[in-house]
Each structure stands twice: as structure tokens, then as C-alpha cells.
């Protein structure tokens, strides 16, 4: 039950806020989160593989990929990048179209540099349903 992350509901109940301290330089965590070659290695979930068909990394650009489930089922996904502030913040939303899985949510990933000993960095991410978009 107790993991290495804190993952909980924000007080607005529309946002899930997760926090994980990652022992790696922020620039590296950033590139692993923003390069399809790296993403294929960890995006998961467990038992899944990820195949990217297009990756247009700019605000408004789209990442199209298929998550292959362990049971052989394929899950079509579309992520649209909303904001890219290298190497500290990444915002994107999921969904939008009949050709992809019916999920709609926005995610903001914040890569904080914790300083301290070399390699001690942190990533925080929050996600909320797309309908709750504030701006």
C-alpha cells in the first residue's frame, strides 16, 4: 500500500496529485519523459508495451501511440501537448476523437530540481479531468 510516491486527491477533488522523488538529474528525467524512444521503455503500465506512430513535440503537437495490453488488446491513445517549458514543466491532455480510448484528462508534470546532493531530483505530476480545465 505505502509506495514511494504520494498520490492523492487535491482538495478540489478533481485533481489527483502525485509526487515522487527521483534520483536522477532533472535534464535526464526531462528527456526520458519527452522522447518517444525513451517513453517506449517505461510508459507501461506493467505488462504493456508502447508503440509510437507519431510524435510532434511542440505546443499543440500530438503524440499518437498504441499501448499493447498483456491480453493482446491494443489501446489507441492520443496526447496533445499544451505547454512545454524545458526542463521544468510539461502539460498535455489525453483524448479527443472517436479513434482513441474514451479518456479525457489533463496532466501537468512538474520537474523540480531539489538541489542537494547531485542526482537528487523530483518530479511531481497532477492530472484532472479535461472538463475541469481552468484556463
Amino acid at each position, binding site marked *: 500500500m505505502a509506495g514511494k*510516491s504520494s498520490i492523492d486527491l487535491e482538495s478540489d477533488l478533481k485533481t489527483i496529485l502525485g509526487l515522487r522523488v527521483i*534520483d536522477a538529474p532533472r535534464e*535526464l528525467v526531462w528527456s*526520458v519523459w519527452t522522447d518517444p524512444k525513451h517513453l517506449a521503455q*517505461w*510508459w*507501461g503500465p506493467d505488462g504493456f508495451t508502447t508503440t509510437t506512430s507519431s510524435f510532434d513535440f511542440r505546443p499543440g503537437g500530438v503524440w499518437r501511440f498504441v499501448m499493447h495490453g498483456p491480453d493482446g488488446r491494443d489501446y489507441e491513445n492520443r496526447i496533445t501537448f499544451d505547454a512545454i517549458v524545458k526542463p521544468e514543466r510539461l502539460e498535455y491532455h489525453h483524448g479527443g476523437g472517436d479513434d482513441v480510448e474514451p479518456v479525457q484528462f489533463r496532466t501537468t508534470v512538474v520537474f523540480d530540481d531539489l538541489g542537494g546532493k547531485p542526482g537528487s531530483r523530483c518530479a511531481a505530476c497532477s492530472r484532472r479531468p479535461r472538463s475541469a480545465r481552468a484556463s
Partner: protein
Amino acid sequence: MDPLSATFSALADPTRRAILARLALGESFVSELAEPFDISLPAVSRHLKVLEQAGLIARGRHAQWRPCRIELDALKGVDEWLEEYRRLWEQRLDRLEDYLRTLQPGAPDEKSPGKNQEKKGGRKK
């Protein structure tokens, strides 16, 4: 509305969440619950009704003495729903960390995987 939607929509109000927080401390009468809020008694009753319909609280039988108490089962549903996301993100971030470790061979390996169990921290040739 399905139960989880009812729960979330009942919880999507700060006054109702404050009422629940108060009830987490113990049973209370409507008048006591209304005290800290700058709203009328009927308004509090309406909030209580929403909470009751969502199964988040229960109220006593007697018409005049109807203390409210929190019902934890509905909240459990919220927690179970959240647990799926916890699991997904725990797994995903674990994979991210494992992958980062393969990219930084020199980095300290605090979570030694099964294979190296016999010699934790010891470097093998």
C-alpha cells in the same frame, strides 16, 4: 447516477466536506453542525440530505433527535477508485526509475533487484 458519481458530486462542495470532517469526530445534531457556518439551518439540512442520499452519512430514526453520523463505506469507494490510479502511477514511476537506473550505470542502486540479493551493495565482477 451511479454511486461513485453521487459520492463525488456530494463531496464537490466545501461546506459538505466541512460537515463530513466534523462528523468524522463523532455524531452530531443538525444544530451543532450548522453552528460554524454562516448559512441557514434549512440550507444545512439540504446539504445533509445530499450527503445522506450519497450514503456518506446516516441519520438517527427519531424525528426529534436525529444525530448524524458519517458512513465510511461510501468513502471507501472513493479510495478504491483512487487506488487504481495510485497503482498505475506507482508502477509507471517505478518503471521510470528502473529505466533511469539503466541509463546511469554509476548511480547508487538502493533497490537491488532479486538477482543481486545475496550481495547487496557488493559489486560483482
